[in-house]
């Protein structure tokens, strides 16, 4: 397998957009291509992520139109990936392996989504299509509901008073909103307090509005290429050190919702491939679709023992000045969550952190970064470990 690196990254501001899925993707894609010192004609394939285009815009089969927007050559196959919220992370993993295998030298990976454009009711319905349609969706399952059930199980299993757990969850939201306030591309760029969270509307007991990430519009893209080629193109290649992806069935089959088994499987593969362990990770962008989700993730990665990670944000260990910086971009919580675009936006943040380009939210001296994206109700997990040298 050849060494693979990232040459350039691009993303739109996340939030509410008047632009179409394709227009947003064109912006992100051109930014990534220009930042890589290549031209659209040099791109040999497009790995394109979008989940809900048919509901957002009546647009299926978006990948070839995306290639056309960017002026990619006809010889570059453009293929759509869909893995719910993990869509563009999964696309990235497949792209990187095909470059590593020598099938392509330079490819573009990314995603686009107009989740906000659907409105809350239709967005909640179509997001819920990521759950099992015969045996889960008829109960009225929503994604906040999935993580709400995980939160209740966590409190019960570890015998933590629910009010204490909720306060610790609120600290995750406060931290990620603070980080988002330092990120000009974040959906929300305002700080909040614990009271903001605890006084919010109840969405799915015990999760309140500020425990939940928003529906966002946005796009992101990265140029992936054979490492020597990237070294010729840009000053600071960011290398793909290791990757993992794992799959699980319906939520009820997973039984203990405090342990995301697919994540444990995925991260083990990524750590092994990279030859690193939890102690080596300097910065992490993880799937904080809900505050409890960040707590589950840091335990899965081995940053904390199971049942011990819930107060990490409260005691400041996962903040920008903490020992294990989690979601410096603001995470899904504050940066926003345009589902098909989320994974390559997480990769974009880690690339910029490893290059030292993040200004006020820069994690000093970060050399190894971890990306984590969860799709559906614990069904798809994908992890990418990147390094700067």
């Amino acid at each position, binding site marked *: 397998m050849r060494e693979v690196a990232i040459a350039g990254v691009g993303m739109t501001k996340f939030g509410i957009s008047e632009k179409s899925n394709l227009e947003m993707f064109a912006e992100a894609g051109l930014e990534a291509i220009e930042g890589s010192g290549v031209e659209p004609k040099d791109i040999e394939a497009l790995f394109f992520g979008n989940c809900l285009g048919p509901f957002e815009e009546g647009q299926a089969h978006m990948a070839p139109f995306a290639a056309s927007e960017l002026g990619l050559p006809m010889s570059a196959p453009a293929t759509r990936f869909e893995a719910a919220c993990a869509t563009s992370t999964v696309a990235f993993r497949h792209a990187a392996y095909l470059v590593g295998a020598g099938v392509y030298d330079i490819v573009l990976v990314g995603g686009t989504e107009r989740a906000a454009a659907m409105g*809350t*009711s*239709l967005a*909640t*319905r179509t997001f*819920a*299509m990521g759950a099992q*349609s*015969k*045996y*889960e*969706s*008829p*109960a*009225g*399952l*929503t994604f*906040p*509901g999935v993580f*709400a*059930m*995980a939160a*209740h*199980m966590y*409190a*019960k299993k570890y015998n933590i008073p*629910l009010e204490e757990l909720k306060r610790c969850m609120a600290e995750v939201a406060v931290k990620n909103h603070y980080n988002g306030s330092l990120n000009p591309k974040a959906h929300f760029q305002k700080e909040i307090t614990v009271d903001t969270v605890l006084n919010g*509307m*109840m*969405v*799915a*007991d*015990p*999760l309140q509005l500020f425990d939940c990430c928003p529906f966002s519009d946005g796009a992101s893209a990265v140029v992936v290429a054979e490492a020597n080629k990237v070294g010729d193109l840009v000053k600071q290649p960011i290398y793909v050190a290791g990757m993992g992806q794992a799959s699980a*069935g*319906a*939520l*009820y*089959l997973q*039984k203990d*919702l405090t342990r995301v088994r697919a994540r444990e499987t995925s991260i083990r593969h990524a750590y092994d491939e990279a030859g690193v362990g939890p102690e080596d990770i300097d910065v992490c962008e993880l799937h904080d679709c809900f505050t409890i989700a960040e707590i589950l993730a840091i335990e899965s990665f081995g940053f904390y023992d199971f049942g011990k990670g819930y107060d990490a944000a409260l005691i400041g260990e996962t903040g920008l000045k903490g020992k294990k910086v989690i979601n410096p971009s603001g995470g899904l919580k504050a940066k926003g969550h345009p589902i098909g675009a989320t994974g390559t936006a997480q990769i974009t943040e880690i690339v910029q952190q490893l290059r030292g380009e993040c200004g006020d939210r820069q994690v000093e001296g970060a050399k190894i970064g971890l990306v984590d994206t969860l799709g559906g109700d614990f069904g798809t997990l994908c992890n990418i470990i990147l390094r700067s040298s």
Partner: protein
Amino acid sequence: MSYTLTFSQYHEGLKEGKFLGLKCDDCGAYTFPPLGVCSNCGSSSMQVTEIEERGTIRTFTVIRVAPEGMTPPYAIVIVELEQGPWVMGNIVGLNPDQLNIDLIGRNVIMGSQPVKGDMFTREDIRVLTFHVA
């Protein structure tokens, strides 16, 4: 290889008050609702059997922001059945606004009720329900 117990057959069972599942010929585990293979050992050699209704609540939530077509508030539970399978459904017979974490661990009896279909599901569909034993 033909699918042993389809959703359609399972669903017809629910209409008749039966909970049709699968018993593995190799490991003896029960799979409910149905899958292509045994949820415990992966064997495709399974027999259709009726599943017993008793179980214990393992977690829950009350949905207050619902998908299009659903009317909140309503409670969702995950239940461990006495025969082993874990299943998802709705709590019935309790006020969703009066539930708290003490619901976890309560013993329940399984039933089912129809849910109105929408333009995506095309037809009405029965959901598992649970009431406190």
